[in-house]
């Protein structure tokens, strides 16, 4: 069991800075997910921890020991590759045991370990097969088995489910969560899929352009995103955004949006954000609604998604449950939202804490 610590870690390839000054503490036994769009440096960061790529600057510690210059094989880690990286000419059994062959532990002990891992992952009946005779999900299990047999202190997963179809991905996600509960090792998991991040992580690390954008539990990141980037990245369908202008203490936006927040002097506000499930549609205008044109509805059975146009080139998604609202395309509808569900972002994309100015005035009085 081991913690993982990154101290001011940077990585450059030539003139390209892939990772910039990352500081991170991962506790022993924690499940941490690195998430971000492609090219954000999440896989590189994982490879730096693994020791497959040397850091340009900074230090990597595993279990409190500095391992910055320690080779990958001596770091007590296992790595599960996106492509599975199974040896195509070896059968499943040998794929799992290959690294043990030079460990001087004897054939019987190797077989015992392979069988233990195989039964844990339910691949005991596949041991004689070659990787090409396996399905995607089975290959993934073998790859995890190969990681497991080394009995590492830290598991590193590099987008392990991205080559699987949707059903299998859900199934394997469950398996990985179960595995973490059983072996209780530290796990670091890279994905670009926000659902995987939300469902698997104890804590999520959101990366953007090689920098840590925010670290926190899935709930913290969802409810209190630090930046517009995090707000837009987590959640599906995505958060709805619209530009806004602050004049004389009052915000104005498309569809007749108007709101007077209590803000510190000198604060800029450039965008508002609302999650799809915070929105509701009605035919009649309310006190704090904005006007929109109904575009289209999608019935997903357990919920529905409505798309409304609130301005030129600005489509918002509204999510609800129950009966599909009976609006016609082209009809004018009014969009309202729960109090406290409005997010404000400043010019640099930072989220602003805010409350209505009149309520603050009441409290003061």
């Amino acid at each position, binding site marked *: 069991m081991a913690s993982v610590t990154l101290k001011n870690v940077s990585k450059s390839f030539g003139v390209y800075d892939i990772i910039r000054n990352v500081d991170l503490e991962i506790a022993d036994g924690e499940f941490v997910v690195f998430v971000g769009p492609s090219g954000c440096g999440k896989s590189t960061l994982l490879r730096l921890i693994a020791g497959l790529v040397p850091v340009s600057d900074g230090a990597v510690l595993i279990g409190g020991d500095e391992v910055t210059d320690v080779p990958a094989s001596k770091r007590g880690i296992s790595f599960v590759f996106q492509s599975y990286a199974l040896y195509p*000419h070896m059968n499943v059994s040998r794929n799992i045991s290959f690294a043990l062959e030079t460990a001087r532990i004897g054939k019987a002990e190797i077989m015992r370990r392979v069988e233990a891992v195989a039964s844990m992952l339910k691949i005991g009946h596949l041991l004689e097969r070659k990787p090409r005779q396996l399905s995607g999900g089975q290959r993934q299990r073998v790859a995890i088995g190969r990681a497991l047999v080394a009995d590492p202190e830290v598991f590193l997963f590099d987008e392990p489910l991205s080559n699987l179809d949707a059903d299998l991905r859900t199934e394997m996600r469950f398996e990985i969560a179960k595995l973490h509960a059983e072996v209780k090792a530290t796990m670091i998991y890279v994905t670009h899929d926000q659902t995987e991040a939300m469902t698997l992580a104890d804590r999520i690390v959101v990366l953007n352009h090689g920098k840590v954008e925010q670290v926190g539990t899935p709930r913290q990141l969802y409810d209190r995103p630090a930046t517009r980037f995090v707000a837009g990245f987590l959640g599906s369908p995505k958060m709805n955004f619209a530009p806004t202008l602050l004049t004389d203490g009052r915000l104005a936006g498309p569809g007749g949006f108007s709101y007077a927040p209590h803000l510190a002097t000198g604060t800029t506000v450039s965008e508002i954000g609302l999650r799809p499930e915070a929105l509701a549609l009605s035919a009649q205008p309310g006190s704090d609604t904005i006007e929109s044109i109904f575009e289209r509805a999608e019935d997903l059975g357990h919920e529905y998604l409505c798309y409304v146009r609130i301005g030129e080139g600005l489509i918002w998604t509204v999510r609800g449950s129950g009966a599909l609202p009976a609006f016609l395309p082209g009809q004018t509808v009014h969009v309202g939202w729960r109090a406290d569900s409005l997010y404000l972002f400043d010019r640099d994309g930072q989220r602003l804490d805010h409350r209505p100015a009149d309520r603050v005035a009441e409290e003061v009085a």
Partner: protein
Amino acid sequence: MTPTDRARRAETRVAWLFVAPLVVILLAVAIWPLGRTVFFAFTDAYLDNPGSYDFVGFANFVTVWEDATFWRAVRNTLVFTVVSVGIETMLGLAIALLLHRAFLGRGLVRAAILIPWAMPMVVSTRIWDWMLNDQFGLINKVLVELGIIAKGIAWTADPSLLLGVVIFIDVWVTTPFMVLLILAGLQLIPEDLYEAAEVSGVPQWKRFWSITLPLVAPAIGVAMLFRTLDALRMFDLSYVLAANNANTMTMSIYARDQLIGFQDLGVGSAASTWVFLIIGLIAIVIVGLLRLDRPHH
């Protein structure tokens, strides 16, 4: 006849239509000459007048079979093939492994290494013939200056050295071909297999022995097959260097001697047919060993 049957039949017809030009060309340039050669092998025809002949049965085949010169040529060819292909494979693998690593100017080196192979064999042979000249050759001059030998060695005149020189020149000329084929095979091996091995602490020698070698083996096999078949019918190198010298005479040179030198169309054709049968047999054995006829995936 169901519509599917009809569609399948139409498809088969189209397929034959596409293959037809190839079949015609093959018939014209391969099957027909081969058939003529086999035909003449059973006659006593002479090259100056191939129109007049009598059938002599297997007499020509027996003549070749009982000719010690022919067996000398077979032995030379086999020694040349085994040794040169062996060295070329080892060397080719070693150089391919070097070139597979990323280093500055790798592209240039890759292009440069092809130069010996791109040169006509006659030119290469003449260059080496001159460089290995016992009195004026560069090689002897360098060796003498360095004090390794006291006086020039007659590389291309000494019967015991001649076959070695032929093998040396062939290695120089065709190793680049091996390098390129093996390099192509190496580049097909996914990099993450090595990363997986690296993370789990598999030592370097075992990575080479248990990952690289088995995965590049098909490419090496194909390269060896090509080179072996090429070496078995080698003619130009030996002929330019030493004409029909018994020490380096190959099967092809023997056949050429019978056919052109002695104008004996019958015996020459019989010799050619023997060469064809020997090479065919070896090709079948190699293809069987490599299991090239079976799909790998």
